[in-house]
């Protein structure tokens, strides 16, 4: 995700809708077409050309036939619904992963809603399920962004149940966007995602990790405490570092490069800079 505004400033902006808008405006200005396909419009009627109409909607064939200038008018139809599934387990509280996750989700929601498509949300806050059905329109976008702002990282995340329910609640074929670190039971998550794919949904996975998780910049004896389970282990970080980095790299690549069925769009990205949160898009 690129934006014209420096990331360290974006993270300090509390208004999620503003952040999303800044990101999307920066993104859209650099692209020639929307990255999210699925938008379409249905021809509705002709009307006489009026000064100021966009010339690309002029039916030139009709001009040739009738010597009169007519402008096409379309009726926009939403033919896609997207559901955001946010991992709010305690592991997402490490660094600014949850914050980054909500920013990415907000930007995606803004883009999708701006195209006229429906956007929904499945997450949890303080142990309670947060669900927003997939709907179009700006008021609903505000509700989704408001729910994103209230998300907190807490406890563990039942990924299988969350993904399954989100997939079921998308009433028509759509897009399922999952943002997580995918620490929780990989096989179960992928199985559920494959099931959603078989239903007909398009799956987009965002794997988020902090730099400390990937590079393990620790030394001396440290007592590591699992944020989700509370378990503790005391190790010498200098000795554990190399083995840890190999294992986490294998995990990272495993998620990015695992064979997935059709309907999974996979793309892995390695950081060229040194952001605190590295985002791999699968």
């Amino acid at each position: 995700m690129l934006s014209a505004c420096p990331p360290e400033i974006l993270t300090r902006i509390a208004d999620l809708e503003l952040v999303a808008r800044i990101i999307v405006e920066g993104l859209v200005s650099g692209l020639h077409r929307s990255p999210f396909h699925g938008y379409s419009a249905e021809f509705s009627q002709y009307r006489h050309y009026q000064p100021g109409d966009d010339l690309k909607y002029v039916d030139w064939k009709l001009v040739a036939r009738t010597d009169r200038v007519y402008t096409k008018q379309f009726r926009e139809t939403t033919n896609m619904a997207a559901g955001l599934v946010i991992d709010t387990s305690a592991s997402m509280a490490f660094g600014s992963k949850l914050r980054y996750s909500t920013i990415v989700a907000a930007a995606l929601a803004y883009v999708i809603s701006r195209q006229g498509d429906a956007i929904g949300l499945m997450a949890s806050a303080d142990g309670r399920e947060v669900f927003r059905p997939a709907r179009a329109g700006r008021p609903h976008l505000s509700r989704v962004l408001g729910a994103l702002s209230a998300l907190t990282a807490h406890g563990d995340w039942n990924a299988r149940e969350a993904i399954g329910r989100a997939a079921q609640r998308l009433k028509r074929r759509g897009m399922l966007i999952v943002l997580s670190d995918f620490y929780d039971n990989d096989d179960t998550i992928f199985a559920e995602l494959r099931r959603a794919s078989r239903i007909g949904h398009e799956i987009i996975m965002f794997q988020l990790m902090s730099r400390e998780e990937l590079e393990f910049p620790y030394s001396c004896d440290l007592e590591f405490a699992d944020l989700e389970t509370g378990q503790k282990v005391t190790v010498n970080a200098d000795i554990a570092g190399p083995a840890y980095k190999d294992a986490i790299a294998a995990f990272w690549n495993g998620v990015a490069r695992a064979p997935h069925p059709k309907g999974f769009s996979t793309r892995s990205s390695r950081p060229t800079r040194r952001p605190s949160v590295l985002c791999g898009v699968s």
Partner: protein
Amino acid sequence: MSVAAPILVHLLAHRRAKPMPFPTLRFIPPTRLAAIRRRALEDVLLLVVRAGILTAAVAALAGPLLLTPARRASWNNRVVRAIVTTPGTQVSDAGAFRSQRFEANSIPEAIHRAVAWLESSPPARHEVIIAAPLTIGSITDRDLAAVPAAIGIRFERTGTVPPARTIEGRRIMSPTGTRRRILTLDHGETSVREASDTASAAWPIDVVSRPESRHFVDAAIAAALSERVWEPPSDRRVEFVVVSDEDGATSPSPDIQPIRSPWMADALAAIARDAELQAEASHTTSGLAGRFARAPWRPIVRTSGGQPIASAAASSQSPQRLVIVVPAAATRHLVTPLLLRSLANSLAPVTDAAADEIVPIPETRLRAWARQAGPPAVPKADTIDRDDRRWLWAIALLLIAAESWLRRPRRATSDAIQAEEATRVA
């Protein structure tokens, strides 16, 4: 102790690994631990420097004083001087490290204050200079004995001694009344003249006797007065009881008690030293009954046979009244007027006119009293004018600078890490 304690606590305290929250422990392999169990000191040099800072600071707060030979010599080369003078006297205190004047009309009182001031002064040779006319009586051995031996004493004779002085001497009781004695003291020569006094003193001896003995006693009193006796203080009275032969053994004794008053004891001692009285008493044969020879009576004059002619005791009713008992037969003898004369003279206190003379203290005496100031002793903590704490503070500052310099690489590393953290982006 203050330095060792934090080090010991640091070493003995259980060193626990720093807790580090982490998203998941899946990928962290178990390893052996490095330094938790060891008690080894790290960075010994930094520890030594820090301990040195603490030690120097604690020592500086204590205000230590190093007694070096150079310091002792510097103390010995300076003088703290207390100048005792009478009002209006000017004395130079040049060359003194510190000096203070103590003026008073009473030299001993000023010496006392001067000594107290010297004992609270910084270490140095201490001396007292007594600048006064230095007349006999103004300073005594006892006054100078209160000056500690380490404090030197010097005398400077200032002012002038008055050429002559007149004082009132003792008063005399005579047949013609009381007379005043006037003494003129003039450079060691004393002259006396008498003058009549309008106020006549009362005869201090009250006589208690039978009428037949009374005129003998009055004659004895007149005879004693003709000898001119000293006038006693008005609060000293004597009851002279003449006991007849008939009632000497049976008459009730006056209400008396043993003698405890010093002036009464002095009077009886003076009577006992009157050789003329004692000699005349030895020629007398009649004395008092046996009970007047026993306590609380004290025989003061005896016959040749040892029988008391006169016995004394103190009155119980009037503690300042001396009771003398004599037999009636003795009133016809010379012993009675001699006893009355001796008794009257012994009641008056003896004075020494020489003590009132204004005579300068001889130089030989002053030289005997004078002495050099002794070397300064180990001073009290609150008298030290300058100790060595400033060197210790300087050492502490140098060590602080060294400590900062030793921590320089660590700070650079820490700054680099913080700069790296600041450039991270979300």
